[in-house]
């Protein structure tokens, strides 16, 4: 069994409306020292067989677009 933990985020320089809106909202709520909010997606995928290569393929085929996304992945054997 394999468990992959993957964080997919926007690349530096991509203007993310969600992070911006949340930052603005937090400032308005009185958290004035919030300087930046970034939002990313976090996936946990369990594979019964498979290996790191399969995880990479999954990420490439479905989870990210390299034009705008960076990702981090950690694979654990469980």
């Amino acid at each position: 069994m394999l468990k992959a933990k993957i964080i997919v985020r926007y690349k530096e320089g991509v203007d993310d409306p969600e992070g911006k809106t949340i930052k603005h909202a937090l400032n308005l709520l009185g958290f004035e020292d919030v300087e930046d909010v970034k939002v990313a997606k976090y996936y946990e995928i369990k594979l019964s067989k498979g290996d790191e290569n399969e995880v990479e393929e999954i990420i490439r085929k479905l989870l990210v677009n390299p034009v705008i996304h960076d990702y981090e992945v950690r694979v654990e054997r469980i």
Partner: protein
Amino acid sequence: MKYEKISDKVYRVKMRDASDDELKKISDEMGLALNLEEMKRIKEYFSNLGRDPTDVEIHAIAQAWSEHCSYKSSKPILRKYIFGIESPHTIVVMQDDAGVVEFDENHAYVFKIESHNHPSAVEPYGGAATGVGGIIRDVLNMGAKPIALVDPLFFAPPDYPYKKLRQGIKHPRYLLKGVVSGIRDYGNRVGIPTVAGITYFDEGYVNNILVNAGCLGIVKKDKIVRSRVTKPDVLLVMVGGRTGRDGIHGVNFASKVLSEKSEEEREAVQLGNPILKEPLIHLILEANEMGIIHGMKDLGGGGLGSVVGEMCYSGGVGAEVHLDKVLLKERDMAPWEIWVSESQERMLLAIEEENLEKLKNLCDKWDVEISVIGKSIMEKNLRIYWQGRKILDLPLNFLTGGVEYNRPYKIQKIEKMQEIPPEPKYREIFLNLLSSINIASKEWIIRQYDHEVQGKTVIKPLQGEIGFETHGDAAVIKPLHDSWRGIAITTVANPQIARIDPYVGSLYTMDEAVRNLVAVGAKPHALSDCLNFGNPEKEEIMGEFVESSRGLGEAGRFLEIPFVSGNVSFYNEAFRMNIPPTVVLMAVGIIEDMRKAITTDLKKEGNPVYLVGETREEMGGSDYYRMIGVRSTYVPRVDLSETKRRSEELLKAMKSGLILSCHDVSHGGLAVTLAEMAIGGNIGAEIDLRSMGVMRDDFKLFSESPTRWVCEVQRGKEGEFEKIVNATKIGYVGGNSLRVRDGERWLFNVHLNILRSRWKNGLKDYLG
């Protein structure tokens, strides 16, 4: 040294003594996408002036001369065929960012369709979203409230094998899901209903998908705003989003062929911010209602660069701009970057000084940023300042006058041939057609769009009994609270026929636009065209463009339906493969009283069913032939006088209340039309094809001959109907299955539940 620094982040480009090779190099290094001829013209111009240009000047010129901004390859052809079709209703035609047409005595509607192909191919979610955002601004520009969106989309089939994809090309399913999510998240959030569209699959789009987006708005006639400044000393004011490095060189990007490297062109990709746009729409509409907007244009392709120049040039003045005043997202942007940035959600307003305070107050209320960046001047020059220093000074006629090409073209000869397949197993082939991806239900997409927000969608894209709905031909919007007058909207395209014969393809597409509008009871009124083609530097592609335009112009003129706005997208080529010629129309009709509107779903047991129009053995481009892999170049013949006559007849019968349901015959032919009508009514029909004359039954059922409709007529009114409409009775509504025979010969009998499940799952099975 070709570049000499003259101030903070501004360079002089030593162009006057550059060789041809150096000129090409400059174009490449600066990312200008200009060819040698164009570079030479710039060189010559500055040589005559006796000075070298600044980098800002060169970028400004490149921007203005890009294909996307200048229409340099298409203008001569468009002028010849498409422009200038007369109509008593038009108000602003092919001048500003969207066309304006009379709706009623006091109101006008405003609309346009545009492509956003390349950005969507590279980043489907953000590309599609910003496509929607951009087209909304084009309508808002004219002072109109946006009330409807449409989204014609073209992909490779969802079962396209992964292994066959080229490096850097994304799978059609990934692209489709990304594009639909992008349109959904943007359109739904800004609160404009997406009411129609196209979802078309063909391998020809595998490397280069098409994402077109259209918007329609409504405005009081006396509140129409033009994109021009007509006198000096009017302030130029930016409102909305800030300016950043995102979207730099988007228009050059749109004028370039896609390649493996396109993945790296991140600067051209943006996500768009609907939550900035939504208050911006309120702000603009309120300011317009107060009458304080002198002129307005959105910052789309080309950014400030194309907006300031065009607005002032068309109003007969010049402009002075201080780039330090532009609010930035990131520090240390160079002036040229600020000038060409295509950051989303920005508008440029021309405001008289005395009204500035009022505008600022509105901005406070809506929490929208505002900045005065310059003003109009008497002299017809553009002058840009940076840190107090003049860094650009060019006459507007040179800058926006642009270039034009009469590109050579070649028209392909069409070899006449038609293969005849053995007669099929009818039930099986019919159900396969019904569930094939280009015909199957698009519900998976349509329901993800809020097609009812604003409460004005009185004929929906999905029609019939609740929970059992079928496809409609057009949506109808009731834009005004106190009037029954309605606007019908549909989008059409037929690359399958156009690829065999682009001229006939255009005629067919025009015929289908009319068919769809008439089917809901609307009189065709105006068109916006989005012409998606391959690389115009290839003679065959240019030939396709010429032939397509010729067909459109001829039909528009004959049918007296003007093209009031449009867009050309060239360079839809990747890995040497060009897309099929893809003419997309957004067509608008007027229905005087929406209470007389008609839907496609069958209504009631016992009513007679009629076929209007002539069915012929012309199978070229049909879904049937394509599915079974049989070839034919006999494409459907369009007789425009029939289009006109039959639609007038039908509209008359509809006005008299004789017709209860109506659906045009298109993809998949008569069989599919009948099935869709039965599905939505949740009631069957018995059909006898004998009255259609002598022809093979597969041709009767699956031919896609134009100018045809199926109508359900009020029982007992047959005589009255036949007096008005020239039509053939083919059967009756009733039962819980679709039963089709030709005289004594039964072709199929399929239960409604089977019809529905095959039709509903054809596409959904791929998308989950």
